């Protein structure tokens, strides 16, 4: 199954890395090189199509919240948050401030869980030369256990607010399915105090790493909000001057269907790839970081490498871990429950569109709604499908610099580079709706 083929002799070379490991979902890399130059780099996604944009048609937005979570088991909160905010914007629902805070706390939980998972179970074994965290644990059990405890702190937040760590159940249009009691939230404090220490230790760990060198300039895109580090809302900005309303995503970006992949790839309407995720956010929103996270970033002193070296994304994730833990602790301290779980609301026709920052980057959703608030058509653009073209572009740049090395090493380095983007392939596979097809 793990099949790497390097063509013998000549200048023509074809590298296949089948069934990428330690990424969520199923993908493979196909690279064609001619005379030392990369002719094509295709990140193939063969996750079976699941047609989500079709499955939500005819559903109420509360049902959509439950359904879109199932696009990704790693970041269900991101899908729920984007859908619920889109719905509330479309229906003109003003939620209680405590609901706003709880949703941000829920999102922090998912970031903590997802980043701890990626750093400790997926990325760190790469950088330290182990096939898995389980093998790493044979030599550095404390480190892995610490990472698992950090992950558990994130899971506890999601489970406390949403009932369970994966596919939580309480997010509803207008708020939550019931009042989340103060006692339930307070009990998170102990976990978060430990998580604070573990997140700081993660910064120290990252400071000791030597990721493989690979530098390039990339177009970085993220949300940016006036009131804090981007999570639940913001405008779309880039390091080359873009600044648009999130609902206007489709005016600047579009998706295309490439023959080697079941996922749609997004590009700028100018045809340029762009990169989302922790590195983009830390670069574009450094001034919005929690003071603790800003201090951690300063201590690491790698802001420039985060912007230019994909293998340093682990540092961006570590900084965001510190941020999410610190912000979560602040929300827990200040939490006062709202008078009711959700506010009253009524559906109306219109377009619900929104973007939030999933752990892996900007997630855009748009739903056309009828007068009963039922979905007429939908578009869901996950971060990994937006990153795919940027990853391929980086691979095409990186491959020539390592091609002289032994085959196994080439494979390993390419896999590592792909993993450094934390691609979530099951999210990337989705179903394109009719409207989009006409424009593409």
């Amino acid at each position: 199954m793990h099949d790497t083929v390097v063509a013998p002799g000549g200048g023509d070379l074809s590298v296949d890395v089948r069934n990428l490991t330690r990424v969520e979902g199923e993908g493979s890399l196909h690279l064609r090189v001619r005379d030392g130059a990369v002719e094509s780099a295709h990140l193939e996604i063969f996750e079976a199509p699941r047609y989500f944009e079709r499955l939500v048609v005819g559903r109420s937005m509360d049902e959509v919240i439950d359904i879109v979570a199932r696009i990704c088991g790693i970041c269900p909160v991101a899908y729920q948050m984007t859908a619920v905010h889109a719905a509330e914007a479309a229906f003109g629902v003003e939620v209680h401030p405590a609901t706003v805070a709880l949703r941000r706390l829920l999102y922090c939980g998912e970031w903590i869980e997802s980043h701890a998972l990626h750093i400790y179970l997926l990325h760190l074994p790469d950088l330290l030369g182990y096939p898995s965290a389980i093998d790493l644990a044979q030599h550095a059990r404390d480190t892995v256990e610490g990472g698992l405890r950090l992950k558990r702190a994130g899971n506890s937040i999601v489970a406390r607010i949403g009932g369970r760590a994966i596919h939580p159940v309480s997010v509803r249009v207008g708020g939550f399915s019931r009042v989340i009691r103060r006692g339930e939230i307070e009990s998170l404090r102990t976990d978060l105090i430990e998580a604070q220490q573990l997140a700081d230790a993660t910064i120290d760990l990252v400071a000791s790493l030597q990721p493989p060198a690979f530098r390039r300039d990339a177009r970085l895109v993220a949300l940016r909000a006036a009131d804090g580090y981007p999570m639940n809302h913001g405008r779309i900005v880039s390091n080359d001057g873009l600044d648009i309303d999130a609902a206007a995503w489709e005016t600047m970006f579009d998706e295309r269907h490439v023959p080697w992949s079941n996922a749609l790839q997004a590009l700028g309407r100018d045809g340029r790839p762009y990169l989302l995720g922790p590195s983009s956010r830390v670069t574009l929103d450094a001034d919005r970081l929690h003071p603790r996270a800003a201090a951690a970033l300063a201590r690491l002193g790698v802001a420039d490498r985060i912007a230019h070296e994909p293998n340093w994304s682990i540092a961006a994730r570590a900084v965001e871990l510190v941020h999410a833990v610190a912000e979560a602790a602040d929300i827990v301290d200040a939490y006062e429950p709202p008078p009711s779980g959700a506010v009253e609301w009524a559906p109306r026709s219109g377009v619900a569109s929104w973007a939030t920052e999933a752990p892996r980057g900007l997630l855009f959703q748009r739903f056309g709604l009828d007068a009963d608030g039922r979905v007429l058509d939908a578009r869901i653009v996950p971060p990994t499908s937006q990153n795919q073209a940027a990853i391929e572009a980086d691979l095409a740049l990186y491959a020539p610099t390592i091609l002289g090395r032994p085959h196994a090493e080439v494979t390993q380095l390419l896999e590592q580079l792909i993993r450094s983007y934390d691609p979530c392939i099951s999210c990337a596979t989705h179903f394109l709706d009719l409207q989009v097809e006409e424009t593409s």
Partner: protein
Amino acid sequence: MLTASTPLQITRRRPRIGVVKFASCDGCQLTLLDLEDDLLAIADRVDIVEFAEATSKRSSGPFDILFVEGSISTPEQADEIVHLRAATTTLVTIGACATAGGIQALRNWADHDAVRSLVYPHPEYVESLATATPIADHVAVDAELRGCPISPDQLREFVTAVLAGRRANLPDEAVCAECKRRGVVCVAVVDGMTCLGPVTRSGCGALCPAYGRGCYGCFGPREAANGAGLATWLERDRSPSDVARAFALFDAWSPPFRRVIDANGGPPGPIDGPARREGPDA
């Protein structure tokens, strides 16, 4: 097919464990990593030989226990599950996709070819079967863990029971039993909510009622699930389409839920093909 009460073979040497996935969201296999406290202790006692999400080491078998996530949605998957079955002693399906088809099985009601060519710019790039179906429609299944996603507690119990050589405690009773033990006030009786608890298998800890909403059936039908009985009651003050809608989620394709959906006009959504492709028991 064997149920949760089926004893598993006691394996004396370190069992070889695999985790594979088909069409799914990865949430069920992530639950294995979510066993945080027990993950390393379990890893000390078994050889995890295939788990693409967690390790670069790969294996195509043999497996003493193979956890299978996801439904069969492409021709390759239909072939692969047969090969995996042949290499596996105890095949365990995890989650609603693998045990019932998952949310993507809702497309089984639609005409797949029409949908595919209608909506994909290049349908020829996309290979998928007309239906998304549970693993047990393709090969024999030895045990199943229900849920969307599976419960970490049930997964822990299952693995512990296998390692300890005892019967896993995975009841096939209704969610109501857990709900009542937990002392949750019934949302159906008090608030008149639609709650699938009486026809849904327990294992979640009566999660949704405890969070103030009706059960949405993500653990699939319990034994003797009386979907028609619940539907009849619900239809006193709901339209048939609202009854179908409630059953048309992650376990829609399980026969007891499917019968209710079919009897109430099919799942929500546009009619872009035959309302259903097979009879209620197909």
